[in-house]
């Protein structure tokens, strides 16, 4: 590395080293965040097209024209894939985790900065390959984000299943490798780079959530990679891992003996932990913010850690509950069902601890707090339908209806997004040195909370009424006719919700340059990122290494001079 001074006017080469191929975890975190920001708007645009098509099936839409049934399926696929991989996996972990994990544990950088840079740019390549699937002959694939065989394993099974599906699988495989590099870095950093005094049980819950998420990613993405390799071989080398004997368009496929269920097992062994990869960082952020803005220590810190650990552990034992429809043995279904409902226990522990943190707190209703409370609300209302679906007897009639999208959008989609929003409003002052506009943030919060509830709550009702999922045409079916009014309402709600995100986008970029200047610790929080300058210097702590004397959530400590004790404050007051 050539030693160079960083002046305000950096040479072009300096710009590339500083902002493009940077080794600084803070810049890489921002790169991840902005990648996810573009992805979320692409994904949201696709969902808007779907909602509009559902109520006006003949409408000619911008950029896509007429929506044929296969176009609708490709919208479903790409919306799901982009949202799950490039937003929910990328922003909370790659974005905020990269930026704040080293600072919160008092490290100057990630353990392996070069690997960190490679991880981002590999993700970027995966993103480009994924988007390229829109623009090849046949368009984007139709097989959904779960990529079920045999459809995904045959080139001729649909218009998007040629090159488009190949690009989709290759993109996922590249993304796996990128996530594995990231997870490796997170785990090593957490275990090896903590500052003096920062024991594991003094880490903020955000760090715990990133750490556990990284472990889940480490164990899950390798399995998805293996499934992707087998799928690519089935598609392009003529093997039969997932393809049974069969015909397509009246011709033998030439494959025999494989099992589509094998794909489902491999996919969901990754797929269920992936749900927790998306939501755990949100739990960490919510805990951090609820404690800070209630001016109270988090209720049951260790219980929170153990709850997250057991959610992670149980998350690997429940993949079969996605496959109750597959005709699995009722005994296995029973085991998966019990394990799934067991996840309700640590989830309830977390929920009650959040409520316990709020109870009798001196609550400051600022924008990060609003979104954290919104997270808890969505986590509860989305989570409650989980035990319904965990029972085979209920899942079988509900599985292919709108009930399931309602459930997972509330808990995995919107709750996780609220975690990202809460983190954005909370850490924006530290990242950019300015405050976001509070009034716009409130408008954004209420429109988004009410809007998303109006979109996704009725889905449960639609599902119970029998509306199937993934159908591109609902208005022509007589038995669904009474539901058209509700669907129209949901589409309007979706339009309003999407419009509200433009407020957020404006607030984000406007505040970056014109917002009110932020102090080093605007929220009067205790963790290490608030002890350093705003924005943090290159080595995070300006040449000295912090020494930690206190736990992460020492608020309203009796006898302390202020109502909060920073982690670096001398340990004269905190009773531990």
């Amino acid at each position, binding site marked *: *590395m050539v030693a160079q001074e960083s002046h305000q006017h950096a040479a072009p080469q300096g710009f590339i080293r500083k902002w493009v191929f940077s080794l600084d975890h803070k810049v890489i975190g921002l790169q991840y965040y902005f990648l996810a920001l573009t992805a979320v708007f692409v994904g949201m645009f696709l969902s808007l097209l779907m909602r509009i098509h559902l109520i006006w099936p003949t409408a000619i839409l911008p950029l896509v024209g007429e929506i044929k049934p296969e176009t609708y399926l490709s919208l479903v696929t790409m919306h799901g894939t982009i949202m799950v991989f490039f937003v929910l996996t990328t922003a909370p972990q790659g974005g905020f985790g990269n930026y704040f994990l080293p600072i919160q544990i008092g490290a100057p950088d990630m353990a392996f900065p070069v690997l960190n840079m490679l991880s981002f740019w590999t993700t970027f390549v995966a993103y480009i390959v994924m988007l390229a699937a829109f623009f090849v002959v046949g368009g984007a694939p139709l097989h959904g984000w779960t990529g079920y065989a045999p459809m995904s394993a045959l080139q001729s099974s649909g218009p998007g299943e040629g090159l488009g599906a190949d690009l989709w699988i290759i993109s996922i495989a590249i993304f796996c490798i990128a996530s594995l590099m990231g997870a490796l870095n997170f785990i090593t950093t957490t275990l*090896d780079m903590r500052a003096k005094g920062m024991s594991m049980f003094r880490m903020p819950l955000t760090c715990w959530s990133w750490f556990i998420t990284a472990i889940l990613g480490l164990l899950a993405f390798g399995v998805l990679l293996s499934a992707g390799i087998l799928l690519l071989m089935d598609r392009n080398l003529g093997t039969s891992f997932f393809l049974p004997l069969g015909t397509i368009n009246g011709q033998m496929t030439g494959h025999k003996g494989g099992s589509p269920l094998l794909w489902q097992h491999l996919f969901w062994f990754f797929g269920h932990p992936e749900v927790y990869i998306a939501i755990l960082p949100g739990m960490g952020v919510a805990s951090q913010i609820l404690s800070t803005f209630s001016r109270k220590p988090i209720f049951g810190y260790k219980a929170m850690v153990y709850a997250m650990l057991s959610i992670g552990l149980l998350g690997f034992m429940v993949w079969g509950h996605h496959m109750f429809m597959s005709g699995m043995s009722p005994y296995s279904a029973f085991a998966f069902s019990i394990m799934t409902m067991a996840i309700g226990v640590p989830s309830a522990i977390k929920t009650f601890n959040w409520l316990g943190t709020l109870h009798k707190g001196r609550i400051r209703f600022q924008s990060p707090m609003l979104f954290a409370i919104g997270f808890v609300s969505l986590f509860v209302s989305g989570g409650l339908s989980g035990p319904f679906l965990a029972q085979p007897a209920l899942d079988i009639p509900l599985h292919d209806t709108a009930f399931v999208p309602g459930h997972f959008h509330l808990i995995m989609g919107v709750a996780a997004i609220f975690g990202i929003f809460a983190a954005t409003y909370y850490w924006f002052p530290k990242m950019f040195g300015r405050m976001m506009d509070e009034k716009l943030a409130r408008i954004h919060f209420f429109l988004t909370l009410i809007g998303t509830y109006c979109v996704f709550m009725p889905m449960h009702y639609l599902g119970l009424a029998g509306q199937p999922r993934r159908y591109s045409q609902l208005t022509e079916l007589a038995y669904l006719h009474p539901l058209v009014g509700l669907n129209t309402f949901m589409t309007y709600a979706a339009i309003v919700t999407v419009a509200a995100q433009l407020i957020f986008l404006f607030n984000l970029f406007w505040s970056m340059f014109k917002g009110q200047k932020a102090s080093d610790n605007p929220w009067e929080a205790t963790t290490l990122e608030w002890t350093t300058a705003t924005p943090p210097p290159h080595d995070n702590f300006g040449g000295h290494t912090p020494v930690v004397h206190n736990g992460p959530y020492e608020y309203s400590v009796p006898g302390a001079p202020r109502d909060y004790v920073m982690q670096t404050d001398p340990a004269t007051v905190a009773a531990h």
Partner: protein
Amino acid sequence: MASFTPTIPAPRPTTSRGNRADLPPVAGGGDGGRPDPDSPDYGARLRRARLGLAVALTPIMMLFVAFTSAYIVRQGLPTFDPHTNTVVHDWIPVPLPTLLFLVNTCVLLLSSITMEYARRQLARQVALEPVQSIPGISLGTESKFPWLALTIILGLCFLGGQWLAWRDLAARGFYVATGPSSSFIYLLTGGHAVHLLGGILALLVAGTAVVLHRPLASRRIVVDVTAWYWHFMALLWIYILALLEFAH
């Protein structure tokens, strides 16, 4: 370390951009300017690299665990035969080129031993480096045997042997798509070969570091970590061979 740390100790950095906090942070960026915080602490870097490797082996293990589970499941699957209207098993055991595989195994195990010698040789060199820099001190007995180069050659020999094994399978009519059994043979051996190639590349990097006059300590870390990776690859190969031999 000071026992007392002030609450908000860090003054706003004035070196890079004064007090202008109105732009996104540029205080980071690049890796220039920063005194590498851990370069002097060689022991900590070695420990961190070893920890990183141990973590990195987990997904590789998961990859092959997933392949194994697919292997076992696929082996037991029946398929419908339209000619006889019955359910049959289409798993045709492929006669393995066992002798060739055994020779390859010996080459790989031998390379694991030379790898270990290379690792220890470098560790000794690093330990003796401060002594050798004292004028007048000579350690004439220090071995200069090119263990690293020998390991690379043996690794390439193993890959060449695997290539011969694939040629042998193909010559007997077993291609990737011939049957589920042959698909898995190519998949498992190919997957292992790709990972071993990564190890060879890492060793080549360590080898070129000699030419580029990189610090001995950095080279040692690369070789040390690759050595553990290499031993893991040897174990993985024995596992794959056992799976193919005993569960075919």
